[in-house]
């Protein structure tokens, strides 16, 4: 497994350890410290991927996260990850990568036929075609486009790896571990401030480890090592490698993702694959460096055309020669460094083309390397198909000639990496002196330093970083500890790229956005068709919309549009970017709580007992509630439910009602407060009594119902529905604190404090009596209907007993402190055994409340008034309450509104369905005849048929009428009789027992 392009020496790789990996099934070898891209290049693999639209062969363009071309699928099976940039994928033993967006193979891709049709497939062509016939779009054209588009494939099974989210707070967040960032972190860290340094790379240093530079008399890479070692020893400094800061959010919050285990075959036990960091920073120093940009010339996407800075990174950091015969094409003095590094690595320099005039630095370097030097010229075209075989050079006088080469190192200048400065609305400013956008506004508390601020010199980056780090720490109250940056071997190099942006087309496509195949001609077309603003350009051509988010393309595209339309760059627009800075796995943003742990699970006090009984549970909000308790021989939920209902109606049953919201209300004005929030009056209710209550929203619509019990002169106990417990508590606090601040009233959620069981049925008093301690009278006289009493049960456990009924039977709600809940349900079952008790679940509860016509969530749906619910009479005329005024609006008081009534099928054997609509008998099933809808249905054992509740226009006036309940989505159409919404014991005799 030779690595033909690995240099004999040099680089920050561990040559002692070979790492075997595969690409498209072939095995290669690399070393720790390699990326997949560097290892592929070392092995002489230059064709790595295919472009999005034309399926053009593509190689490696960059050595960083801005890579548009070298995208692969990494790993297999459920761990398959699409669109991984080979330039940042850290090599590990056994890595498996595949090329993507090609069929059948990378070298022979049938869809490359798209290139032949490329004269048709220009920007926006699809807006102009595929319209006829219309029905073929979804059937033919769209599937074809969809299959051709997209890059890699998502996994088909759930991601098996865990993720974690965490929060960190710091004084100073330093983004970027290059020279400026290291200086900032050292300067801030030495003051004792809490510092986080985050860098997306697995090695710190940035350009320090990609260049042959000296700092303070030693190699820059060595200096970076020492800086990292010192940072590691500062107790309040956290260095996060492999961590990309993705976005800036309001309030000094930054999002970042740490690739904890991506450099491993799979995560170590209990370790996450990735960790998402919310970083709360008082100050931030952005030292994200700069990104090189391309020049648009023909065939500039051919594998082997590479950014000059990337060429140096592969040479110096990875000990890899990306080519052996190189042409260097640049418009800035970085070219001199490229020439020198290629020469030092033993590569042949075929030609050096400088778009500018004479440059002394470049002159010297080219002479040393023995390269042909072309000033004021251009590379007009690179050619070679799947790898560069040569290029056509145009000289200053317009003459052109071809040279053979296998590498074209291009530098169109550098763009400061200012993405994070724009996330909160900062608008970049074009600077002619840099020929680039520099930060305009920044997020509050952020300073930008180094190349990211347009300071491209190493010395100035170090100095600015050190200063910004110290100042940021000072702003947080830290001082002392100084850091003097080392002396840099700066030259007076000219790194701004002063154009050209493009080389007048000869032959071959000149790419602006490589991945999305946006060419100079596409930009010209956009301009011709009026898509001249940057936003239109982007959207029309898809420039900048690829996985690299236009990191290499945006400025070039903008500059081309400016040139084509004869405007300045600032007049043409600017490039705002959106988070994330680099794409982030959804798994990381989702974090640890997945599948069954997606949300908390609330377990009521009887849960463990119910599990033992074999109960079937149902998710109700965050709660798990027992739906029903099947017994051996019962075949379905309905059979079980009917048995449970019949047991309650004839004997006694017990239900865990603990999930209802419970609120303790105390204070001298507690009664007055409740009068404000409920439509009925509680201030005059006697102590020891309870009553049903309904509260409205201020817009007059019913909000929630429940019961209110008075435990003392200034002490009430309020229940809410299970679903609305939290929102009602918030509403009550709003009323207490904001609307009625002068009232002496205090609220405390006691939902979890009390285990509460509803014991219902004709024998319920017998059960309660068996549990109540001596001396507590639970007879009808001692505790009449709607009575409340505090007592002790089972030999001294304090309890509250409410004579309330939801089922229509004589019933009690018995509450004990929750720790006794498990024991109490067992005690109730034991005490009830002689009376034939059974537990019942939410299904049976629902049946019984429907039989009694009690409104629940389906009726309190946020669209109904007290009057709609048949509860209008409860509203006190003597007092105001929230919602009273607006409930009197004509639209809400309209008697034609649908009102709550009951329904029975005319043919008693027919089933009813919730969600059916009512239309008059004989009328067409159309919206014009829609008179309401069914909210709740149940099979009523007492009635021997299905019964329903629903809202019917003028329903209360139509008792006895027959209407149709139509249910087209389930092919249902049932004639139903309109009845009063009470199906059992309409006189209410039984509750009074």
């Amino acid at each position, binding site marked *: 497994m030779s690595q033909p392009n690995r240099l004999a020496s040099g680089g920050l790789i561990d040559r002692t350890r070979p790492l075997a990996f595969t690409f498209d099934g072939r095995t290669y070898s690399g070393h720790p410290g390699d990326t997949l891209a560097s290892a592929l290049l070392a092995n002489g693999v230059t064709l790595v991927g295919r472009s999005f639209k034309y399926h053009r062969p593509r190689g490696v363009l960059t050595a960083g996260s801005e890579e548009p071309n070298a995208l692969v699928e990494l790993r297999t099976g459920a761990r398959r990850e*699409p*669109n991984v940039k080979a330039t940042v994928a850290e090599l590990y033993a056994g890595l498996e990568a595949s090329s993507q967006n090609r069929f059948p193979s990378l070298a022979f891709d049938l869809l490359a036929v798209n290139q032949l049709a490329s*004269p048709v497939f*220009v920007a926006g*062509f699809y807006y*102009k*075609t*595929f*319209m006829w016939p*219309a029905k073929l779009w*979804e059937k033919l054209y769209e599937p074809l486009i*969809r299959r051709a*588009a*997209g*890059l890699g494939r*998502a*996994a088909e099974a*759930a*991601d098996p790896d865990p*993720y974690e989210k965490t929060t960190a707070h710091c004084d100073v967040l330093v983004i970027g571990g290059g020279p400026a960032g290291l200086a900032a972190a050292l300067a801030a860290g030495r003051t004792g401030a809490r510092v986080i340094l985050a860098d997306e790379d697995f090695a710190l240093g940035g350009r320090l480890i990609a260049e042959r530079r000296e700092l303070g008399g030693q190699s820059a890479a060595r200096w970076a090592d020492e800086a990292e070692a010192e940072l590691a020893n500062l107790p309040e400094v956290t260095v996060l490698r492999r961590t990309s800061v993705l976005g800036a*959010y309001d309030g000094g*919050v930054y999002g970042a993702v740490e690739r904890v285990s991506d450099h491993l075959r799979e995560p170590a036990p209990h370790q996450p694959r990735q960790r998402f960091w*919310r970083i709360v920073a008082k100050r931030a120093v952005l030292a994200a460096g700069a990104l090189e940009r391309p020049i648009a010339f023909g065939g500039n996407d051919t594998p082997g055309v590479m950014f000059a800075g990337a060429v140096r990174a592969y040479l110096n950091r990875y000990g890899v020669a990306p080519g052996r015969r190189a042409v260097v094409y640049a418009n800035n003095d970085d070219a001199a460094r490229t020439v020198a590094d290629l020469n030092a690595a033993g590569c042949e320099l075929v030609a050096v083309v400088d778009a500018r005039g004479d440059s002394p630095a470049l002159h010297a370097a080219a002479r040393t390397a023995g390269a042909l030097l072309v000033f004021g010229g251009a590379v007009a075209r690179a050619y070679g198909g799947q790898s560069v075989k040569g290029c056509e050079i145009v000289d200053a006088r317009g003459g052109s000639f071809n040279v053979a080469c296998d590498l074209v190192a291009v530098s169109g200048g550098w763009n400061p990496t200012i993405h994070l400065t724009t*996330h909160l609305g900062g608008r970049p400013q074009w600077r002619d002196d840099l020929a680039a956008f520099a930060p305009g506004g920044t997020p509050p508390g952020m300073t930008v330093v180094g190349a990211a601020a347009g300071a491209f010199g190493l010395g100035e980056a170090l100095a600015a970083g050190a200063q910004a780090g110290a100042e940021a720490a000072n702003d947080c109250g830290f001082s002392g500890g100084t850091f003097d940056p080392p002396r840099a071997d700066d030259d007076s190099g000219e790194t701004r790229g002063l154009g050209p942006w493009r080389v007048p087309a000869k032959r071959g496509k000149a790419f602006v956005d490589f991945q999305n195949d946006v060419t100079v001609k596409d930009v010209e*077309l956009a301009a011709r*068709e009026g898509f001249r*603003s940057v936003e*239109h350009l982007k*959207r029309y051509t898809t420039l900048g*919309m*690829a*996985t690299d988010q236009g990191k290499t393309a945006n400025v070039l595209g903008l500059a081309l549009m400016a040139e084509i339309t004869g405007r300045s760059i600032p007049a043409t627009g600017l490039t705002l970017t*959106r988070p994330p800075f680099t*794409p982030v*796995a*959804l*798994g990381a*943003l*989702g*974090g640890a709580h*997945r*599948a*069954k742990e*997606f949300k908390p699970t609330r377990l009521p006090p009887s849960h463990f007992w119910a599990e033992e009984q074999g109960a079937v549970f149902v*998710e109700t909000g965050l709660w798990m509630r027992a739906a029903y308790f099947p017994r051996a021989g019962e075949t379905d939920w309905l059979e079980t439910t009917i048995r449970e209902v019949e047991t309650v109606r004839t004997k006694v049953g017990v239900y865990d009602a603990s999930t209802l919201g419970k609120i303790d209300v105390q204070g001298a004005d507690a009664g007055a407060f409740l009068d404000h929030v409920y439509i009925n009056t509680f201030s005059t209710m006697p102590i020891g009594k309870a009553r049903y209550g309904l509260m409205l929203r201020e817009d*007059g619509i019913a909000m929630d119902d429940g019961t209110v019990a008075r435990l003392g002169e200034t002490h009430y106990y309020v229940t809410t529905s299970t679903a609305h417990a939290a929102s009602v508590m918030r509403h009550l606090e709003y009323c207490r604190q904001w609307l009625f601040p002068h009232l002496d009233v205090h609220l405390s959620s006691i939902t979890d404090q009390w285990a509460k069981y509803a014991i219902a049925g004709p024998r319920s008093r017998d059960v309660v009596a068996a549990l109540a301690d001596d001396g507590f009278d639970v007879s009808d006289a001692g505790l009449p209907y709607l009575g409340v009493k505090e007592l002790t049960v089972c030999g001294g456990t304090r309890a509250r007993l409410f004579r309330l009924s939801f089922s229509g039977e004589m019933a009690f709600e018995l509450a004990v402190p929750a720790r006794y809940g498990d024991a109490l349900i067992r005690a109730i079952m034991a005490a009830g055994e002689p009376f034939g008790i059974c537990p019942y679940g939410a299904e049976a509860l629902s049946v019984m409340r429907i039989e009694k016509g009690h409104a629940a969530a389906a009726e309190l*749906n946020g*669209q109904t008034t007290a009057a709609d619910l048949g509860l209008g009479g409860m509203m006190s005329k003597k007092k105001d309450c929230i919602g009273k005024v607006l409930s009197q609006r004509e639209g809400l008081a309209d008697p034609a509104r649908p009102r709550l009534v009951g329904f029975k099928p005319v043919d008693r054997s027919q089933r009813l*369905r919730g*969600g059916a*609509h009512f239309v008059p008998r004989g009328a067409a*099933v*159309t*919206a014009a005849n829609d008179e309401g*809808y*069914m909210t709740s249905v149940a099979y009523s054992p007492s009635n021997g048929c299905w019964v329903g509740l629903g809202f019917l226009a003028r329903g209360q006036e139509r008792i006895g009428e027959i209407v149709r309940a*139509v*249910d*087209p*989505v389930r092919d249902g159409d049932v004639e139903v009789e309109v009845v009063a919404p009470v199906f059992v014991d309409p006189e209410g005799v039984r509750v009074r027992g």
Partner: protein
Amino acid sequence: MSTDRYSIFSVLREALRGHTGWKPAWREPEPKAEYDIVIVGGGGHGLATAHYLARVHGITNVAVVEKGWIGGGNVGRNTTIVRSNYLLPGNTPFYEHSMKLWEELEQDLNYNAMVSQRGVVNLFHSDGQRDAYARRGNAMRLHGVDAELLDVPELKRILPMLDFDNARFPIKGALRQRRGGTVRHDAVAWGYARAADGRGVDIIQNCEVTGFRIEAGRILGVETTRGFIGAKKVGLACAGNSSRVAAMAGLRLPIESHALQAFVSEGIKPFIDTVCTFGAGHFYISQSDKGGLVFGGDIDGYNSYAQRGNLPTIEDVAEGGMALMPAIGRVKLLRHWGGIMDMSMDGSPIIDRTPVAGLYLNAGWCYGGFKATPASGWCFAHLLATDAPHEVAAAYRLDRFATGRLIDEKGVGAQPNLH
């Protein structure tokens, strides 16, 4: 000769000459001194209104004034979903009218906006949700709109990537509207603009309205950064900026502006071929023709004019997505952004006259604005042209909050951040 008719033939012809013959999709005219109608807002709704004024009502002395570039607001920032699966009688016919206009849009505009009726699937996870969706689906069917309830086996067939086995909130079924789907959002703005322009409508970009000239309670025109433009009638279609613009005319609206975030992943090969909404978390998703998973969740929940949101919502959406389809764990979020929604107080829109004679309002779209674009334009054009509400938009009255004839689909009341 330049080319202005779009077809495969014109594309092929242009291909032979390097696409040099295409005309600009719309002109860049200077504003005239006066128009019959000035529409404020060059988004989808404003441009659609202009198109239908010209095409349906023959009114072409119309200007659309836009403070920035057309299509730069919500029409280019949404998650591209179209559907007419509404519950309440005030809404269903309107959105169905919109759906029908979508279905003929490409022929009408000679522009392929890629209307893709791939279906919209709303999952439910409880019996209560099932009944609520049945109620909605039946309402749709009564209005002649397609709707069906799907059971779990059918869902497994069309959405095999959902977590059916290990979910905290098990999937119990879904409501599907097959005719729902997605539309290439930018193309909608461009297609309407091009079509309106072709009929003589002036689309005036970079022209911000700075005030209204109102005399004796009647509108006379708009003051803009490019001077005064006279108008017999002025229609506001300003989406998230409705309150700011209306305030210049002295109006206070039942609207709050809120940021809704949207998300797109990197392009991947076909993964999901319908629109799907989670019923137990804030997450909905589809896949664009380019391959990106396009998804979203809840609004950020506080008044905002900043086109961006914050991390809690982003995390909430990702958590929902991972709960629903855990195979997307290694798919990467490419970009997220925000748009400013004109959240009305009952969650439904307003298309109505205002107390100022000649000034008309089209606002309150919440996050239903994109799917409504054609019908909104159609009905607003009708109102502007005839001074009478279109029958399918008759419920969208400004005074419904005073009368109590609310159109509250979600039933959450006058709290815009919950709609």
